[in-house]
């Protein structure tokens, strides 16, 4: 699905990440972790085609991401941003319907039957069907996050990119969102998600990509990452790993 070779990313002439070699296959749920400022969001933006690569190659389904047209990109990659940009007092359904933009030519304004079906399905997938007429600005943080996810699903893109989708969410809503992402991955979507909570990543992701010191420190299964003490090195802190009663892997600062 995605392949990178000697990928390098810069911000204002400063090398942020380099020598990145990895591949991701369809249906995987990848969590990207690393200390603040390491370049997780820039990395995600590069995969989304919104940040130029400084060297190496980055391709999706065999095509260089930079060679995709804007419409092709939107039909292949759904990038869900978690910024706090104020959104108009628009109905939830209208926000989700924006995901269909790339399927229309500039003179085609009317919603097609296919659009209506996809939008309804996207809202149902994130359990927001009954909210479709609600104004976006009356929603809670968790509900807004679901709307952004539905917007991404309306793009019908095989790759979902999410930048900290669980930030500002309480533990229950965060788990619901991550469970939903895992289900989507199991249904064939590829999910790459920047997370800050290591335990969320350990519990839900198939593989963890740990960014540190301007490159990929490790890209492996949760168990292997914990076993090799990668997180300790990445964050520069001693972590203690335990298994919960249900067998889930957890890490805590040991000091």
């Amino acid at each position, binding site marked *: 699905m995605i392949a990178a070779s000697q990928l390098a990313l810069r911000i204002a002439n400063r090398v942020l990440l380099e020598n990145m070699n990895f591949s991701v296959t369809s249906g995987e749920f990848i969590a990207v972790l690393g200390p603040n400022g390491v370049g997780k969001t820039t990395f995600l933006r590069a995969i989304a085609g919104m940040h130029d690569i400084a060297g190496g190659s980055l391709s999706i389904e065999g095509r260089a991401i930079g060679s995709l047209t804007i419409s092709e990109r939107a039909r292949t990659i759904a990038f869900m941003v978690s910024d706090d940009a104020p959104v108009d*007092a628009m109905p939830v359904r209208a926000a989700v319907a924006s*995901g269909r933009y790339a399927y229309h030519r500039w003179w085609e304004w009317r919603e097609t039957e296919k659009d209506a079906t996809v939008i309804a399905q996207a809202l149902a997938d994130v359990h927001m069907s009954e909210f479709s007429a609600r104004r976006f600005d009356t929603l809670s943080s968790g509900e807004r996050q679901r709307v952004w996810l539905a917007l991404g699903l309306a793009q019908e893109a095989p790759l979902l990119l999410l930048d900290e989708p669980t930030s500002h969410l309480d533990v229950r809503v965060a788990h619901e969102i991550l469970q939903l992402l895992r289900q989507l991955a199991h249904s064939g979507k590829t999910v790459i998600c920047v997370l800050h909570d290591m335990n969320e990543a350990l519990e839900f992701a198939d593989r963890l990509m740990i960014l540190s010191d301007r490159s990929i420190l490790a890209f492996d299964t949760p168990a292997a990452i914990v076993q090799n003490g990668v997180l300790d090195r990445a964050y520069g802190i001693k972590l203690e790993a335990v298994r919960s009663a249900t067998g889930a892997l957890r890490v805590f600062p040991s000091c």
Partner: protein
Amino acid sequence: MRTIAVALLAVLALLVSLSVGATAISPRDVWFALFHPHVHSDVNTIVWLLRLPRVCIAGLVGAALGVSGAMLQGMLRNPLVDPYLTGVSAGAAAAIAVAVVLGVAAPFIPALGFVAGLATAIIVAVLARRGTGIDSIRLILAGISLSALFAALVTLILTRIEQGSAAQTILSWLAGSLAGRGWHEVLWTLPYLLVGFGLATLCIPALNVLRLGDVRARAVGVDVDRAQWLIVSSASLLTAAAVALGGIIGFVGLIVPHMARRIVGTDTRSLMLICAILGAGFMALADAAARTLFAPTEVPIGVLLACIGVPSFLYLYLHEARTTP
């Protein structure tokens, strides 16, 4: 349904505007004159040569300012933006003031204002350029800075010239007025207005998605840079043509999009059409009031709009702010 209601009200406003003035003409006579243009009568002369071009100009100016205000407010996601943000009015005013002082013949002045307004908008857009797109904050800063510079130039000219007809002409442009305009002005601005409205139509789908913010719009496939240039070009063209037709008429471009949003919501597909209809009707009514309130003297339409429009707008806005949870 609401669109049809607004359209009917706008047509009514246009008819009212045709009926009232120094000589009152009954709506029935107006109707008759409109459908019998070749009948020789005083009523026909007033309707076809004096009132109709003026009502057309009021409608075109209102529609142009309403649409360009809605576009810029949508692009910048800022409800306080008006069509003069890009410096069109200030550039046009400065050029008109200089032209009047230099004694340029009156028929050339609107065209000069149009060219100068458009040139200012181009300079502002170029100053606001970042990468291949336009930076919102830079656009606002460049627009405000250049507008302040040109406003200072106009003030300097007004303080330096003798109070007389030149000063009156400049002030009449600054206050906005449709007096003395006719079919000639309609005809030469129409192509620019049509191109402006055409470009505005192309912007509608992108504007609808830009409500989510630039980054999300980019993510769903909007070429944001291209959309920004298209929006600024279209808004500047419409505003420059409106200024050439009626001088600097404030508040329409600010208030009409707000009124339209209260009627049809924020969906740009309905919003732009309503802005055009509402702007046309609103301006036609305002012009009718400007002609009749202190007849035979005309109140500058810009002054009238400020006196009526601003308190109503503030009432609506503050009332909404208090009633919205």
